[in-house]
Each structure stands twice: as structure tokens, then as C-alpha cells.
């Protein structure tokens, strides 16, 4: 276990999020002593620090924002999720939101690290210079993935909304219900997250479109279709929410469904050059270098 190895750091970050999730759930029902009360949040901060360090090292390796394979994209989304949570926590102190975010980071983080073919070392291919040759594309990709992080947080808030709603409809105190935020606050937060997420995704689309008009040959049809479909999906969701045609539980379910689609389509949003690199390194053994 090395604090300079990318995968070791990511495993440690995932373990830290996992510990935060478990302690957060225990703390909900069994109050801790003052000494350990903030431990779930401190563990999230520790996980965030380790994840940031790992992504930084990987960025140095690939000479750019690390978004070249499934592991990197998933980890960047989770990193964005935690950033969004930390920003939101400044104005809205919700420990359970952190616990839920830590839970999502645990599940997706373990999945992305467990699937070794998600972390193909494309940067070791012959002739590889840097991940993004055009800085505008790098900006486009990082903003897009950050917006995915916001949509991930939106899905987390929606899960909390549905849990609170279910607890209220069951007419029982329930395990989590009394500790979850109010229904109305969650719906307001979800709406704001959707609006901010759509804004970032739109900005990313604009930047990406500038590149696409100049070099359409680099953008595959699948990438174009998936990206546009997702943007239209979230945009329509926003319009329907503003016009009160979609709200409450149906709105929450749609935000979760769209995020699942976004996650599943992650592999399709790579540009052609990266795909070519993928093919080039497909036969080479996986080597993880540490710095």
C-alpha cells in the first residue's frame, strides 16, 4: 500500500468513504460521544483528500484531466459529487446527505476499482503524448463530468426524497425517516441541483460544439447521440419541473433513472482518438505506474 500509487490511493479513499457511510448510519440511531461525533464527516474529508491526490497523480501520468477510461471517469464523477456535497454543506448542514454520498462513493468506487478492464493504461501506448490535444476539449470533458457529479448528487437527494416520502406514507416512525431532511427542502434542493447541473452540461455542450464544428471527424455518432440525448433528457426534465408538470416522486424517479442512463453510457462518450488509443493498448498488459 503506497500513498503514491494511484490505485492504492483510490482504494484507501473508497475505504474511507465506506467507513464514513457505516459510521454515519450507526450514528443516526446511536448518538456518539462528542469525540467521535464528527468522525463520519472527517472520514469523508480524508477520502476526498486521498481521491484528489490519486486523480492528481493520474493527471500527471496522462498529461491532462484524467478522463480517459471508465475508472477515471467514475472517480472524477465521485470526486465532483463530494465537491458538490462539501459546497452544499456550507449552507445546508446535513450529515445524512454526506452519509448517502459516502455510500454512493463506496459502491461506485468499489465497482470501478474492481473491474480491472475499466482501468486500461492507455497512456503507456506507443506514441502517446497527452490525453487531450485541444485544451477546449479538456475543458469540455471536465465540465461535462463535473455536471455528472452534480447529477449524481441530484440522484442521491432524490433517493433521500423517496425514502422520506415512503417513511411518511408508511405512517411508521421508520429507521431513517425522522433523521432525513424535510420533503419540501429535498424537492427544492433537487430542483436547484438540476438547474445548476443542466447549466454546467449546457456550457460543456457549447464548448464541445465549438470543437465539433471544426473537427467533426473526431466525434463518433454514438457519442453525439448519447450526449445530446442526455442533455435533452435533463433539459426537458428541468422544463417540466419549472412548469409543474413533473414533480414529487415521479420527478425524483426520473432524476435517478436519467443518472443511471448517464452512468451506463459513460463508455460511449469518448472521442475517436481515445478509442483508437484503446485499441492500440488492448493487447498490452496492464501496468500501473506510481510516481
Amino acid at each position: 500500500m503506497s500513498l503514491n500509487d494511484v490505485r492504492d490511493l483510490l482504494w484507501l479513499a473508497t475505504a474511507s468513504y465506506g467507513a464514513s457511510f457505516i459510521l454515519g448510519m450507526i450514528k443516526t440511531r446511536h448518538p456518539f460521544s462528542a469525540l467521535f461525533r464528527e468522525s463520519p464527516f472527517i472520514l469523508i474529508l480524508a477520502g476526498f483528500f486521498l481521491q484528489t491526490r490519486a486523480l492528481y497523480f493520474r493527471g500527471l501520468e496522462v498529461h491532462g484531466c484524467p478522463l480517459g477510461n471508465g475508472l477515471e471517469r467514475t472517480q472524477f464523477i465521485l470526486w465532483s459529487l463530494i465537491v458538490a456535497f462539501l459546497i452544499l454543506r456550507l449552507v445546508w448542514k446535513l450529515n445524512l446527505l454526506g452519509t448517502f454520498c459516502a455510500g454512493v462513493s463506496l459502491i461506485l468506487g468499489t465497482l470501478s476499482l474492481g473491474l480491472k478492464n475499466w482501468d486500461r493504461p492507455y497512456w503507456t501506448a506507443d506514441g502517446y503524448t497527452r490525453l487531450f490535444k485541444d485544451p477546449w476539449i479538456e475543458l469540455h470533458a471536465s465540465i461535462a463530468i463535473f455536471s455528472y457529479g452534480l447529477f449524481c448528487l441530484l440522484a442521491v437527494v432524490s433517493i433521500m426524497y423517496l425514502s422520506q416520502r415512503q417513511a411518511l406514507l408508511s405512517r411508521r416512525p421508520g429507521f431513517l425517516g425522522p433523521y432525513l431532511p424535510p420533503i419540501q427542502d429535498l424537492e427544492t434542493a433537487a430542483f436547484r441541483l438540476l438547474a445548476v447541473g443542466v447549466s454546467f452540461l449546457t456550457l460543456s455542450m457549447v464548448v464541445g460544439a465549438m470543437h465539433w464544428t471544426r473537427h467533426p471527424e473526431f466525434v463518433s455518432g454514438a457519442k453525439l447521440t448519447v450526449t445530446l440525448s442526455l442533455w435533452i433528457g435533463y433539459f426537458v426534465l428541468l422544463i417540466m419541473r419549472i412548469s409543474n408538470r413533473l414533480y414529487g416522486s415521479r420527478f425524483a424517479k426520473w432524476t435517478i433513472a436519467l443518472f443511471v442512463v448517464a452512468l451506463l453510457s459513460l463508455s460511449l462518450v469518448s472521442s475517436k482518438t481515445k478509442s483508437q488509443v484503446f485499441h492500440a493498448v488492448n493487447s498490452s498488459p496492464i501496468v500501473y505506474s506510481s510516481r
Partner: protein
Amino acid sequence: MSTNSQNSLFLIGTSHQVANLNERETIGLPTDSIREFYRGLEDLSGLDECLVLNTCNRTEIYGTFNGAFSIDVVLKYLAQFRELDLSFIKEKTYQRSGSEVVRHLFEVASGIDSQMVGETEILGQLKKAYDEAVERDATGKVLNRLFQKSFQAAKWARTNTGISRGQVNLGNVLCELARRIFGRIDQCRLLVLGAGEVAESALEAFKSRGSEAITVTGRTFDWCPLSRRKPDELAQKFDGFTLAYSKFHESLHLFDVVLASTASANPLLTKTQVEEAMKKRPSKPLFIIDASVPRNVEECASSVDNVFLYNMDDVSAIANENLQSRLSEVDRCRVALAKRAIRLWDQIKAQPSLPS
């Protein structure tokens, strides 16, 4: 009062643990006689410090004395003051001394000795009793330290154990449910339909949490101007507004919480009417409490999206579950408080010229 002599800590009291309501009423001190009672206590020779806690459920006298004093003197004084037999007082009171007093006070302050386990009102009553005693200069080094530590112990118990988890009072359960739906209770617009006891209890709970927009309506407005007109009285009592019953259906969408508590044999609110109201506030939840028997709100109205309908069985079930949850924490809390009490007692004993 002096606190420098060698003295001992004692407690004499009565509560629901040893006396029924009638007996507690007989022993309890009338509010306007507390000062007089203190004057008599202070005149007892050998009593160094004293503090009287007098609530609807509990009458307790805490004190410290020196050498030759006997706590029977306090019992006799209480019997004489309340004009009761000494044997009755002895039978219906408990006595504690030394570390047991500390432990008892910690349990009282944290609410685990209360009839409604985990209730927080007792802490306010204790603080008030302590302030009164301090104002009279009736407390000294020992009781000051003891009571201040008991406030800390109560805070610790509420923060670190589950004895105050969940609401157990019906009005508070309703407020807690409203909080889980709307967040801020003070911004909820409340409509009360009828003027039953539950309505009043709920109104008190909402009002105490800062709810200002309270509206009351009832059938007695329209058909019988000479009737009890209780809805008017209820609105007046809680600084609320009144709404003509004939208008309440068309104004339903303006309210966040609707509490029905009438004796009507037929439903006063149907699913269709709720649906109509929700069309005008689609994304805002509506919390309906049907506190009537027979029910005033059609059960199927709960199927409307964003509508949360509770009847009194639901609310009672939540209150009971919360109470069970609190009771399961009592033993854990008691053990932890006992440890704190022993630590404090050792510290008090270690001080020069304090209890032996």
C-alpha cells in the same frame, strides 16, 4: 444560609413513583405558598441549604444540614405546612441521602424519572426552581454545584442517548410530521376544521413552535349562531383567523396542514375535493390530519400525489413506538448517569467542609 459547616446532602420528595394523582395533589405545594414554605424551611435550625422543586407531578425538597439535624424535622414541617398526617407523608414520600441524591437529581433532570420518559419540560422546571432558590439565597456551595452539574448531565443524556428520541405527545407528533414534510413549522399555514380536544392540543403544539398563520373553521358558524361557537373561541385563543365553513373547500389549496376534528358522521373532505385543491398547488405537499371518529376525510384521499393523510390511530401508533424506543434507552442512560453521579459525589466529598 451558611455553607461552611460540616453537612450532609438529603432529599425528600414525592412523585408518580410513590403516589397517585390525588395524593400528589394533597402533598404538592400551591404555587402561591412557595415563598411561605421557604421561610419556614429557612427557620429550621441546622439546615444549611435548601431548594424546593414543585411541579404538577413532583414535589421535592433538596437540602444540606450539619451535625445534629434530622431530616424528620423537614418531614414534620411539610406535614404541618400541608396539614397532613406525618404517617401519610412518610408513606407517600421517598428519602435519599448522599450519592443517591446526586443520582436521583441526574435522572430527574434528564427526564428518565418522568412519567413521560424523556420529556424536556422538567429541565426547565428544575432551572426555574434553582433560580428561585438562588434568588432567595437558599442554596450554597453544594446545591449550586449539584444543580449546575445536573443541567450538564441532562444535556449529555439527551445528546448521547436516545431517551428524548421521537415525540410522544400527540400534538408534538403532528408537529414532527409537519416538520418532516415542510421543514419550518412557523411558515406552515394551518387550517383547523372543528374544535375538538385534539385540535386544541395540536394548535398549542403548532403555536409553541411559532406558527402564526392559524385559521379555524367549523360547521357551527353557519347553522347555529347561538351555539357554543367554539371555533370562534379557538381562533381567538390562538390569535388565529376564522373562515366561514361554506368557503373552506374553495380555500383548501391555501393551507399546508389541515386538521379535521369534528363530530360529523359524514366525510367533510372527499378525494375529489382534495384532488381539486392539489391541482392549484401541485408541487406543494398537503398534510391532512383526520382526528375525528368517525373519520372526516375519505381514506382514499391519501392516494393523491403529494398528500400525506394521517388519522389518530396512525399518530398514536407513532407516539407509542417512540415511547418504546425511549424506554429501551432508559437502562443505558441510567448506568451512564450513575457513573457521572458517583464521580461528582466523590468530588463534592473531597472538598473541605462539605458532606461527610
